[in-house]
């Protein structure tokens, strides 16, 4: 194993900012949704904080997109179609069976390919469907609060709220899954260390001493 600089500074900053903001959004969102059950900031402060956090999330998402675009890292999220299903099945089998047998990860992580196919498809859905849904419904709800005519003209206010809430629940489920699957690195904490330091000891396959790195 050798330490490879796999996550650049901007990636890590974007990731941890996103994580912190999303956790805060979930907390304040729960307080808005269930004010009688959860009262940390108070409903009014939680609502204001939620709005500002939403602005930060949107800003961070845009900056993250621009970074990935100009650094050509967007392709990390695009699965190779020809081999996708095969590798995805292998990865799924690994999570369900192989990991308990101590098998190696079926898809080697490299600088050029930091995510396995299941991760790729998941992040594609999260970043292209769920996140935009939350941003859009959030902006519409913000607009209806500050510009009452928006609430009247949109005609979708009774649907925006529940849609936003559904997205929130899905994000919560994703967050739990994401944190847990981050423990499936070559050690329990290796992925966390990599996302903090940027360096990760990548597995080198013995029969192929020459690695493909970028």
């Amino acid at each position, binding site marked *: 194993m050798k330490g490879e600089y796999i996550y650049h500074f901007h990636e890590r900053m974007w990731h941890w900012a996103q994580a912190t903001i999303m956790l805060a959004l979930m907390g304040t969102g729960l307080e*808005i*949704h*269930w*004010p*009688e059950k959860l009262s940390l900031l108070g*409903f*009014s402060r939680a*609502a*204001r904080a939620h709005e500002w956090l939403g602005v930060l999330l949107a800003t961070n998402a845009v900056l993250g997109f621009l970074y990935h675009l100009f650094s050509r890292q967007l392709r990390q999220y695009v*699965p*190779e179609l*020809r*081999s*996708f299903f*095969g*590798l995805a099945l*292998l990865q799924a089998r690994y999570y369900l069976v192989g*990991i*308990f*047998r*101590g*098998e*190696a*990860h*079926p*898809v*080697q992580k490299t600088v*050029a*390919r930091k995510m396995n*196919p299941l991760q790729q498809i998941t992040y594609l859905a999260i970043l292209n469907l769920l996140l935009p849904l939350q941003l859009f419904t959030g902006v519409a709800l913000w607009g209806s*609060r*500050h*510009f*009452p005519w928006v*609430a*009247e003209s949109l005609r*979708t*206010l*009774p649907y*925006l*709220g*529940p849609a936003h*809430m*559904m997205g*929130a*629940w*899905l994000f*919560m*489920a994703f967050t*739990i*899954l994401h944190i*847990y699957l981050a423990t*499936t690195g070559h050690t329990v904490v290796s992925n966390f260390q990599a996302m903090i330091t940027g360096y990760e000891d990548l*597995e080198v*396959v013995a*029969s*192929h001493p*020459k*690695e*493909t790195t970028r």
Partner: protein
Amino acid sequence: MITNARGFWKVAALLLCFAVLTVSDFGVTAEPIHPSFVLLDAAGTDVLTSGAPLSQSKTCGGCHDTDFIARHSAHARADGDSAPPPLRTWENASAWFGGWDPLVYELAPGTDLKAWLTSYGQRHVGGGPARGAGVELDCMLCHLSEASLSARQEALRDAAFEWASTATLSDTGLVEVTEDAFAWNATAFSQGRFPVERLRLSRPTSERCGQCHQHVHRDSSPLDTWNAESARSGAIFSSQPVRDSAFNLANKERLSRAFDVHAERLLECADCHHSRTRAGSVSDVALRHLRFDPRRPALHEVLRRPSHELASSGNGQEAGLRRCTNCHDPSEGHEELPSPSRHFSALACESCHIPEAVIGALSHIDWTALDADGEPLRSYRGSSSNPIDAMVLARGTEPTLLLRRMSDGQRRYAPHNLLTTSYWVTASPLRPVSREALMRVFQSETLQHALDADADGRLSSEERRLTNPQRARLVAELLEAEGVEKPTIVSEVEAVEMHHGVTEGAFVVSDCTECHSSKSRLRRPTLLTTQLPGGVAPHFVDDAALELQGSIEIEGGVARFVPAPDAQSMRHSYVWGADRISWIDWLGISAVTLVLLLAVTHGLGRFLSRRKHAVEGITPHADKSITDEETGKEGSPR
């Protein structure tokens, strides 16, 4: 400088004279503004000469255009010109003239003016439709502090219509009232003229308005009563701190607020509900090309022809009503309120500034059963009985927030008291059963015997109630025997608007969770009645401005209004923290729980398998990964 006793006494005498002159003015206020005048009869003759009834149109008409005033008075017109369509099939109109009021019950007798005057007309100021019976607009009823409404009402009840205006002066000493006659008392006049130095004519004080409208209390004596209109809406117009009143209220010591903050701030009813053309007032007719209308009526014009149309909220609708925003700027003083524009567009000011009716309000008037005095059975919200009874502990009540279309066209939540009325109707013609018929039935021995459950020889309120279907059937049979055709019970709910009893500061609704929580005021069920006569489900009176979202539910004889906003209304007012779709929450919680369980299970499995491998000395396989070279292209197996 006083140097000797003589000088001292001179100064003392001067001071004493000054004091006497000053003291002599005590009890005599400033020179009256209104000139003295002679009271005239309809022929224009001095009433002291003719002994005839007073004609206020002739008397006041000497200086004021009483004909103009009578034609420009919503009170005189009884709202006839601008009233919406009648709410019930037996009503001629929804206005006073022809409308039906559950507090009064007496049926407005069609076009029989004289019959109307003896009932509903008792709260009418005269003029308008009452002119046909010789009842003029009674100026002094509102403009004279010593006017007697009760005497006037008695005259109307006795059909002494031409003497109604005279009866108004019963408490002034100017006229003596005996059982069947009115006699002018010349000695009470000031050289044959109206004694303006003793009897003050002025713009209407709030107490005058309180004769017919909500109870007004302006002196320092502990407030201990209310009137029917206050009971209907739960509002009393008084500057007195609630805790200084004589009511028996729960947690009274914390109620340091005034009954109404506008009364506390020394506003009179006429300050907000003023004439459109009062001297110095800005016209409330909006002219698009003008930012400010500098035209003012001259004082003599106002005095000669004072319009008695009351100022509206500015857009021509609901004449006589003023909105809070006519005087207040909501953008000032709400710094702590998040999203103020959203709140102001969804809520009427009263929603937060009338958080409760401090002594409660009427909840149910049951005319299906009369007590020994022929009165209906009344139930109150916030107390077991009438809260003016000192033996009754009153807790106050929260208003019901309902969506109503306001004068500016916007729909907003506003506070209401839901008043349920139950009564018998006869089928042909469809109308309430007369009170006389009901009295005969409830005084009959048959009914007394049948309802007297404890056989004590008298009927208690509970025994009279027709919550038992058998009792209701018995009363129906007895009514039929009285000639009432197909008597049936009707129960209706009226949403009474609440605009007074305003508070400010710490007593205003300021906790967000009052609305933004599962126990939201906007979604809280309201108890209508626990004594539903005949088990008949009540229905809401058709109110065009009210947008009801919810239904009346009945369980075990208890009726409740349960708000249930639909998608149409939630388009206007989706309330965070209060409105949610349960299945989305359940689905979401299930998804999160499932993922958590999977993670814990999977993690446990990994932990156990690692331990097992460690014990067995098995190392993980490290050579099974698919690399980029194996795939050729990134991620593609060969």
